[in-house]
């Protein structure tokens, strides 16, 4: 029975790869390393950011959930607050060519200006490499990595899954809670949640 199950599992895993099902990263484990170029051609390698907190934020400005957090200024405020505190905040777009929310570097830069995006850098990932590596499912989807390179949070930006800006002040912001705790040397109350949003357009 055990052998049969192992074969079954192996088949599922093989099928998963061919269907490019998303990997899942584990909170508490080292975050997968990557090296990417931002919209200005500058390179960002995760392992080079050891010693700093890193936030990965998946976005798509055409998604109503992302718009909720950007139109209200909620996302930009978080980006500003934490980049000023030394956090590296990377906004990542994994929309595939031809799909909603896919931008050229120039367009992305224009949107960054227009919306007052205050992250450290904007990364375009049209092949979906980083997205698949981290298992980014929705926009938004947030991942927080600590100075040791360990993934300490993954999931939703806050606890009210809606497209309505009026829910922002009512919600518990998981990113804020995680970074305050971690930066204060405390353990996180919530380290993993189900992210909400539009599907990432791989």
């Amino acid at each position, binding site marked *: 029975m055990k052998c049969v199950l192992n074969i079954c599992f192996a088949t*599922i895993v093989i099928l998963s790869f061919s269907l490019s099902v998303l990997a899942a990263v584990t909170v508490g484990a080292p975050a997968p390393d990557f090296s990417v170029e931002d919209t200005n051609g500058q390179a960002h390698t995760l392992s080079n950011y050891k010693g700093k907190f890193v936030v990965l934020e998946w976005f798509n400005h055409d998604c109503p959930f992302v718009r909720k957090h950007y139109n209200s200024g909620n996302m930009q405020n978080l980006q500003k607050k934490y980049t000023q505190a030394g956090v590296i905040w990377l906004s990542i777009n994994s929309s595939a060519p031809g799909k909603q929310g896919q931008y050229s570097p120039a367009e992305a830069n224009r949107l960054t200006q227009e919306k007052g995006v205050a992250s450290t850098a904007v990364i375009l990932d049209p092949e979906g490499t980083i997205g698949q590596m981290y298992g980014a499912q929705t926009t938004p989807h947030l991942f927080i990595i600590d100075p040791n390179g360990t993934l300490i949070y993954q999931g939703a930006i806050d606890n009210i899954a809606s*497209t309505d800006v009026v829910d922002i002040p009512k919600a518990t912001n998981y990113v804020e809670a995680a970074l305050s705790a971690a930066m204060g040397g405390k353990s996180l109350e919530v380290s*993993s949640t189900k992210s909400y949003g*539009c599907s990432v357009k791989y």
Partner: protein
Amino acid sequence: MIKKILFIGLAFVFFTEARAVWAKELDAAAIQAVPVSEIKSIQPGRPFWLGLKMKMAEGWHIYWINPGDAGLATHIDWQLPRGFIAGPTHWPFPQKFNEGGLTTYGYAGKEVFLTQITPFLIAQEQDVTFRARVNWLACREICVPGEADVSFTLPIKDEWPHIDKKKKKFFLRTMKRWPIPQGLGTAWQVAAYEQDAFLVLDVVSPHEKFSSFGQLIFFPERNDLLDHGGEQKIKKIKNGYQLWLSKSTLFKENTKSIKGVLVCDKSWDKKNPRRALEVDVPLSRKE
């Protein structure tokens, strides 16, 4: 007279078809909410059904109470006149969507959401209005949130309500897509237990002979129970079937019960045409 009716009918059809095409261009109108009532009047004390018919344009879908990996659940909120109480919305079983490798649950094409309204106070004969606000997220390659305010105005009459037979049949067809409440209408039993990275459902029949199922799909009510994209492996066991479900990475260790809807490719019972079965069972650990 008949010619006139036909002409008006055709014109109406043409108009609605034209509107449907036009609606495609305007993403916000990709979803339409239409009120449907089976009764023509309300008799004090007699409960009745009100329906919200949702029409999704080609390629668009809205979401179930658990939307899955992405999306947003559809909500219906009622505003009732005094003396009336609304029961819960009845959700027909959903279907699975693959959104670029992500698995979501919802409705496409057409679906109807029914609510039972109970008149409590005996009111004088008058017209009363019921309002429902539907909120949804409609997705195709893009997602557009939407809402609609729908109203029903009906007279209260102290007489047997005239029931529109066509609408009644329409409602009965919708009810076939509701999950069979647990313990009623079928002898099938479900037991759930954890086995390592899996949640296993034993689906057993007390009868020796039972219809063979080609497909069983479990739709969990909670968003953090299962890996929605994981394969749901079905195995034949003595007296029934076993469904192996992959736990979500967010699965909580102290989960005590499993709630959801088990959908079969055919009806569960010869006597009951429904294909969906409500599951609300304790979760045990296999020794």
